[in-house]
């Protein structure tokens, strides 16, 4: 799924982005601050400038620094499209909120990493219109470019971080969305990964979002299936997994899940797509998965992957003598919000 940015009109300030990220309507914010909705609307779009007093009230109500809410959106940059992996229909308001949160996270991450940001080793490879290169072909190119061997990716989040992709795991406020990604020009790709899903699903979502970042610049009808195909090849390269998908059974799927770190359902689908499981076998094994209750609750726990880039940099900065307050300020955050989101809730 993709959404065109609603926040990148000329003159706009970050006030609107912060408000939406907090899940507030203009009406909500107007009530909370006693500032008229009309004025808020004009202020967000940059038609009128807010005075210091109103800025302070708004910053307090939104839990954000004044500098951030008055910052022009054009200074921050915003990707024209974001892509998200969702499990079912999500209200537009929720999507907008996540999109705004993603834009804010870009600001925060850029401030936290500063010159410590890893070099970006990822390139955009759009899918050709005629289909000569498939999503699987591009997944193989990316694996090769990142130096990932044709074997199970042991720690996907770390592999992406090494390539310059920033991964932030946090609650997304809904279990109906797994992840969201954007890659604005001049910035690193950023994935917001929901912390609610099991680790095998998180890994697939991460690879799926990587696919969007690499292959998709504008939305297409097939983008979700293309991203799934990329993710399948990235996590389960055909050349390596093919021999292991012969004569699949439920116990074998469980064993392979532990090896490859992907769900049994994804492995079964991979077997089908690679022609190692015919339609009848695919149906039968799916029935068996359902009967065992594995469609909703699969056995075998895949170890959870925690991104390490941001905690490492924060630690480095603290060791070098900076304070939490310094880092929060560089991230355009209040100290409280910074601690909550990046310091494990404790200073």
């Amino acid at each position, binding site marked *: 799924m993709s959404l065109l940015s609603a926040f990148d009109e000329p003159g706009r300030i970050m006030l609107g982005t912060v408000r939406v990220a907090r899940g507030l309507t203009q009406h909500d914010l107007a009530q909370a601050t006693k500032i008229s909705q009309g004025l808020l609307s004009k202020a967000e779009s940059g038609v009128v400038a807010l005075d210091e007093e109103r800025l302070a009230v708004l910053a307090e109500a939104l839990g954000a620094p004044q500098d951030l809410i008055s910052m022009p959106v054009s200074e921050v940059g915003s990707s024209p499209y974001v892509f998200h992996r969702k499990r079912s229909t999500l209200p537009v308001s929720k999507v907008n909120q996540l999109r705004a949160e993603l834009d804010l996270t870009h600001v925060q991450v850029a401030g936290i990493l500063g010159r410590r940001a890893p070099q970006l080793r990822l390139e955009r490879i759009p899918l050709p219109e005629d*289909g*000569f*290169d498939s999503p*699987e072909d591009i997944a193989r190119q990316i694996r090769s470019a990142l130096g990932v061997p044709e074997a199970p990716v042991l720690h996907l989040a770390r592999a992406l971080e090494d390539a310059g992709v920033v991964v932030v795991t946090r609650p997304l406020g809904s279990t109906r969305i797994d992840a969201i990604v954007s890659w604005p020009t001049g910035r690193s790709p950023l994935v917001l990964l929901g912390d609610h899903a099991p680790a095998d699903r998180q890994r697939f979502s991460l690879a799926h979002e990587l696919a969007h970042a690499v292959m998709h610049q504008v939305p297409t009808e097939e983008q979700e*299936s293309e991203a799934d*195909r990329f993710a399948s090849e990235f996590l389960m390269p*055909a050349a390596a997994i093919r021999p292991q998908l012969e004569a699949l059974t439920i116990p074998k799927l469980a064993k392979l899940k532990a090896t490859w770190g992907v769900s049994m359902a994804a492995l079964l689908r991979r077997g089908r*797509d690679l*022609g190692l499981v015919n*339609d009848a076998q695919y149906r039968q094994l799916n029935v068996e998965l359902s009967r065992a209750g594995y469609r909703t609750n699969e056995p075998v726990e895949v170890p959870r992957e925690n991104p390490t880039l941001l905690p490492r940099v924060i630690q480095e900065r603290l060791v070098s003598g900076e304070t939490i307050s310094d880092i929060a300020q560089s991230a355009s955050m209040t100290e409280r919000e910074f601690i909550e989101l990046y310091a494990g809730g404790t200073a």
Partner: protein
Amino acid sequence: MSTEIITGSGGRTPGGIGTAPNPAETRAAKRLGTRVLVIASGEAEATAPHVDPVVSGLVIAGAVAHRTLRALRKNYPELVMMIEPTSTSVWATQELPFMLDVSGIFPEELDDVLDAQLQAGATVAVTPTAVFQAGDSDAMKAALEMVNKLERDDFVFLLPIHYRWLDKANIKQLIAIIKRSHHPVAIALVDSSSNPLEHAGAIPGYRRLFEAASWAMPWRADLGAFDALAHGARAAVIGQLPSLRRIALPGKGGFSSDKSDMSPHVLLRKLLRYRRSSKMQQDWFASAAPETCPCPHCGGRAIDRFNGSDEQRLEAHLHNLHETTVMRREIDGYTPEQIAAWWTQRLLDVEYERQALKGRIGVEVNLTPDVKEWLRES
């Protein structure tokens, strides 16, 4: 649909270096014309006299194909004949997309294999392509690059593909690869457990492929060849036996509903299906007089009479060849639109034929899954 006969063999690509030939303009395409050929193995010599030289031709499969063709060429100098150079199937790889002997000091080259076929008397050569696993585009692209580098235009680029290549996810890439071929492309479907066109989504993918390709033909097909012709295929090769109507997965044999039953699969043209003669005897004509066939091989005798002897099997296969040749003659001179309309009418007629047979014998006669799918998608 008409057939152009062009004599002569061998030769380099006209137009010089750097020219990307249009597959339809190659000598291979012109020699094949719009023929519906038959592919035979052990019965090739016995089949040759019955092949229509104008609208059909003979493809010889098997380990002794070169020797068989050399012998046949003396007696049939004008007949379009080809060799299928891959008598066993192996998976293609990016390094080895063709079955070439690379073990010696002087490894076999693609040109050598094509030349050997032409020297044995083949009208058009065929690449010895290995089988492409589902989605293995690296291997297929490597094969494409190799054939496009060949400076000749007297061969067909054979693509044996796992049936999953026809899936919605893979068909776009397959078409893109085929469209980049400078040479006519022949598509052979690979499956060991069932009719490759019975898989979900296979028929729409197959149709889309022939609609999009500039010159493609089904290879080792069954009546799906006519569905392909109705959707843009230029020529076709139909298998004489079930095992020659698809390619088995490497390392796996073909499939058979009953390996002990050697009775032949007989083509029932009006029902657009093959049926084993023993099954017709047991299921349809146990309590009713069998249908008869007026073709030269049946001579008005019962259509279910064939037993499992070599002679009877050959006779059934010659009946099948006669029937597909009749179908091909019916569309001679037709435009693509007329072929499509003809095929749709043939499909619609099946229902009438089925009901008529059912009414006469008092036994249910089912449509085959592919006829159902062809009808549904038409």
